[in-house]
């Protein structure tokens, strides 16, 4: 494990970004209270961001010295299309979650995701999605009573209605 591994594609750029962000945060930490006193609210932020800058710089120095890995490519090993698509899917899911609601958004997400990954028919994917969604819904919404965004499906009212029905009969 001690042996240095080769530099992966994009590693230098990533380290540079980390260093720049660290520098910006250091500047921001300085803005909290400057070097006012050791007990100022800015003391620990200043110390931690300084540590980030120093370590990021050291990592950059080391990274620049290591030979590049010739076998790996950015497209194949770092950001294959599938991962980019999924990052997009996740963002789409988060964006639609509140306006559309938990049930339709999750169903769409699961169907598309399972279809993409399993390469089976869309019907097959939709059925598995529906089944998993029911399990998740029962566990989280009914057993753990976690709140989810209702959106266009009035699931809260339906649940209340069912509960009322059950308690009415009992």
């Amino acid at each position, binding site marked *: *494990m*001690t042996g240095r*591994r080769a530099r*992966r594609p994009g*590693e230098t750029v*990533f*380290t540079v970004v*980390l260093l720049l962000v660290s520098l910006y*945060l250091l500047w*921001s*930490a300085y803005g*909290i*209270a400057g070097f006012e*006193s*050791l*007990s*100022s*609210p*800015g*003391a*620990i*932020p200043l110390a*931690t*961001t300084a*540590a*980030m800058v120093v*370590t*990021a710089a*050291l*990592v950059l120095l*080391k990274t620049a010295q290591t030979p590049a890995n010739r076998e790996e490519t950015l497209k194949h090993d770092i950001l*294959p299309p*599938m*991962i980019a698509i*999924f*990052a997009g899917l*996740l*963002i789409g*899911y*988060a964006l639609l*979650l*509140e306006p559309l609601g*938990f049930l339709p958004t*999750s169903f769409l*997400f*699961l169907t598309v*995701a*399972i279809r993409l*990954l*399993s390469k089976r028919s869309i019907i097959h994917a939709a059925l*598995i999605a529906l089944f*998993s969604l029911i399990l*998740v819904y029962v566990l*989280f919404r009914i057993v*753990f*009573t*976690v*709140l*989810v*965004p209702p959106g266009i499906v009035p699931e809260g009212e339906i649940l209340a209605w069912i509960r009322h029905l059950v308690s009415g009969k009992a």
Partner: protein
Amino acid sequence: MATLAAFFTVFTHPELFALVALGTFAGVYVGAIPGLSVTMAVSILISFTFSWDVMPAIALMIGIYMGGVYGGSRTAILLNIPGAPAAIATAIDGYPMAKRGQAGEAIGITTTMSFFGGFVGIIVLAVAAPFVSNFALTFQPRDYMLLAVLGLLLVGSLAGESLVKGIFCGALGLMLGTVGMDPLTFTQRFTFDLPLLQSGISFIAVMIGLFGVSEALSQLHHIDKTPVRQAISRIVPSFATIRKHLPLSLQTSALGVLIGALPGTGGDIAALMAYDHAKRVTRNPERAFGDGAIEGLVAPETANNAAVGGAFIPMMTLGIPGDAVTAIMIGALFIHGLNPGPMLMVEKPDMFWFIVGGLVLANFCMLLFGLTGIKLFVKIVEMPRAVLVPLIMLLSIVGAYAVNNSITDVYWMLGFGVFGYFLKLYGYPLGPIILGVILSRLLDDNWRRAIISERGSLPDFFLGLVSSPLSLTLFLAVLFIFFSQTPPWKRWRGRREALRAKADPARPAAATGSEGGR
């Protein structure tokens, strides 16, 4: 006699017995599911049990707490996602074991050791509560600060391939913990005038992002490969295995109780410190740490369950929470008209012994539920990746949303998920980030309190540090651990070991290699 009667209350009342059992069962699953935290479950339970009597309410919460601390280990082993922060260290060796097809063995040893640690914690709680609380009472802000630093040094142990990258991640975690309104002076820190940053970044969102989504994204690399079948071998561990690890488990249990008893530090820190301890004292592990060493499971699991008993010590004797869950339980006791603190022990000793009894029962239930029902649990893991990966993502999003019912947390979670994916890809360890976030408040608050109490004078601070035996001990521990992780020290030790090996060929020099090289 009254003590004994109070102790056996849970065993003699069927409904209390059932509530503890039910709580433990639910706790195992709550703890196991990422995004559902024991803290969350117990706080929701307060509102449910508000109208109940105090004993059933406490019985249920004790069960959830005990089961939840243990439950996080299952997903850590089977999915490499710690279900709870206390199981972060368990994933390091538990997951490699599961990948080798030893998931059953890993769960078995984890359960047994959690049971063992839990018992040590309860015994210490029952026997030494007054002594330990007296000791913790003398702690100054300075000592808490040193404790936080001590915790941070674990970065060295979690860093993996590069210590510098580990320190970067630890510092990043500390910084993330300070985001938002400073509670002492109401100064804005790293908020960039954005309202959404004022209350800080939800720690749970960071954790779910780093351990849930980033893992799910990484798994997309191997989606075409056949899923690793997590074969469940024998679950009940052999007596020989238990006996072999008994000395280590005793040490880490003691460590767990101590850390748990210190206010503000709970099972999560106890588990990480115990893991570090195991790495130091285990000379020749059968497998290297991080590659599925049994010692790497024994240590954190005994410690985090021992910390449960420990956490009750300051809660019952001083009214100070040992961790987040006990903080909520103090609230529950208040609601039911009890006043946790030194007077509770004097006025209502029955309550104390009832809780001790409840913990004992919960511990037995945990052992029972832990060693059974795993086949069902594993079904979740044996799902094809094409279904599992989207489901992990879905659960991560729901979990992040459920904490505060806020979509902002979901965005943070996704952001950290993508960031964590790249960090992992480029060899940055994710554990230190979480460690930093957890310890940030403890370090920040107590550093400033300590400096203010010395009127801002650094020389006075150091004078106070060396003149108090407790602070001095902690400070020396910090220095020792720090220097033992630096490269010159490791080289020196390596040379010494090599010389010794030359002088005595029977003694292998491999010990330092496995310890220091990683």
